[in-house]
């Protein structure tokens, strides 16, 4: 946030941390059912996915509402997606497997659904590391290109979700539908822009425009 901490920023931070507080409360009160280790793991994964989706929803919302100034929140939600994904990974490594690497290595090698989780996490990690404004400035134009990798993270995350299930697909289908809308919206905007460009700019000048930038 530029300069001072606003009420909206405070409110968003509390909202973003709420799922973690609820989870801790559930753990302390033994409210996670017969398999609490798995419940923790799944809950954290769900929230990582939800924050990733919220992050991807910001741009379409900005476009539709023409309400500027949400870019900072996009960064914030993205970082919370990274935060919950990190807790999800840590729970997998140090709660479920208690850091026994011989078990972990075999599990990762043999579980195809985990590979997609690893891929999604690697991307989100890279985006989080390049998230600070200083890094953004240094990377210049390639920053935007790099951060488009979020689409690959979303795709990997949804495959990761689908592939661990035995066949009950209602919840992943719900998330898949939402992401299709969010990505579909971008495709529409892209196609419209391309058509506008073609209408407005004579063919020969496209090259010179890019050179001049």
């Amino acid at each position, binding site marked *: 946030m530029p300069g001072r901490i606003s009420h909206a920023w405070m409110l968003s931070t509390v909202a973003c941390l709420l799922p973690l507080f609820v989870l801790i409360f559930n753990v302390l009160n033994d409210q996670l*059912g017969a*398999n609490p280790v798995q419940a923790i793991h799944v809950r954290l994964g769900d929230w990582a996915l939800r924050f990733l989706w919220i992050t991807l929803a910001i741009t379409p919302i900005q476009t539709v509402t023409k309400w500027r100034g949400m870019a900072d929140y996009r960064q914030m939600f993205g970082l919370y997606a990274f935060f919950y994904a990190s807790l999800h990974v840590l729970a997998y490594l140090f709660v479920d497997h208690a850091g*026994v690497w011989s078990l972990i290595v075999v*599990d990762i090698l*043999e579980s*195809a659904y985990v590979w997609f989780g690893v891929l999604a996490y690697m991307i989100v990690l890279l985006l989080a590391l390049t998230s600070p404004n200083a890094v953004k400035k240094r990377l210049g134009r390639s920053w935007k290109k790099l951060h488009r990798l979020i689409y690959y993270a979303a795709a990997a995350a949804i495959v990761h979700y689908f592939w661990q299930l035995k*066949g009950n697909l*209602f919840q992943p289908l719900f998330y898949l539908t939402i992401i299709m809308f969010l990505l579909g919206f971008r495709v529409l905007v892209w196609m419209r822009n391309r058509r506008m460009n073609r209408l407005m700019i004579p063919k020969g000048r496209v090259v010179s425009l890019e050179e001049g930038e």
Partner: protein
Amino acid sequence: MIIKTEKTIPTSEITDQWVFQRRRTIIKAMMAGMLLPSAVSLASAGSDDPRWRDLQRSPYSDDTASLTPKRLVENYTNYYEFSFNKEDSSDLAQHLRIDRWNIAIGGEVEKPGQYFLEDIIAKLTLKEYVYRFRCVEAWSMVVPWVGFPLADLIKLVNPLSTAKFVKFTTLMQPDTMPKQRIKAMLDWPYVEALRIDEAVHPLTIMAVGMYGDILPKQNGAPLRLVVPWKYGFKSIKAVVKIELTKTAPMTTWHAFAPNEYGFYANVNPDVPHPRWSQSSERRLGSGYFMPRRRTELFNGYGEQVAAMYGDLDLRHFF
């Protein structure tokens, strides 16, 4: 049945034997229901007056592992007829009607017919079987089942030498089983099967109870199969039909995804599910930061069952 000869009392007035034997549990449940309406659903399963006391324990019992707490076993079931969520069937299954349970036994047997469950129980010896149970989803538990060897039941109906497989079918009761009603996901009713030598193996039992009491409805009441060296989905619940067949029957999960769920479904850490590893398992009731257990071949029952598979390629016949 004795009640058939009693003509002065109309049959509608006679208390069902099944109900009679559980009268204390039922009255308690009703009282609990008056006091705590929300607790009704589980009250019928919980009781400090269990049906069976001091049952002889099968020599195949696992005496070294600590039992999984009963409340966990009662609240973590894959009963897809009710819900795809393991913690929802505990309530939903309470609507199931399981009184006057008959089992149709047929196929390659000399004495096919409808058998009344209480008659079968009266004829056979019930024992307690403490078995490890390993789900294909990589979680496990240790359960003290009450039951009898399936072999004893098969002997009662005189199997023919032509019988090579045993096919089991779950109850079809769409008005109480929501997923059957909406024809969701699997092809209902649920069907499972064993090779005849697996079926008559002394480890293979039909369970009517657990923890010294009758089976809770969500755990497969009133009669379920338990095959401890195979993944849990083989241990079919609420069995209404048992057929001895000449050829291998098609089973429900195998039909749904043949590359993921084999006919044998023997627990095997070296043969991963196509999408996840089977090398380790989460034992229910184990605390936070307790590592997963390493899964054992045949769920640790190799000494008893490995000979049945000889040089069968377990990777191919998974």
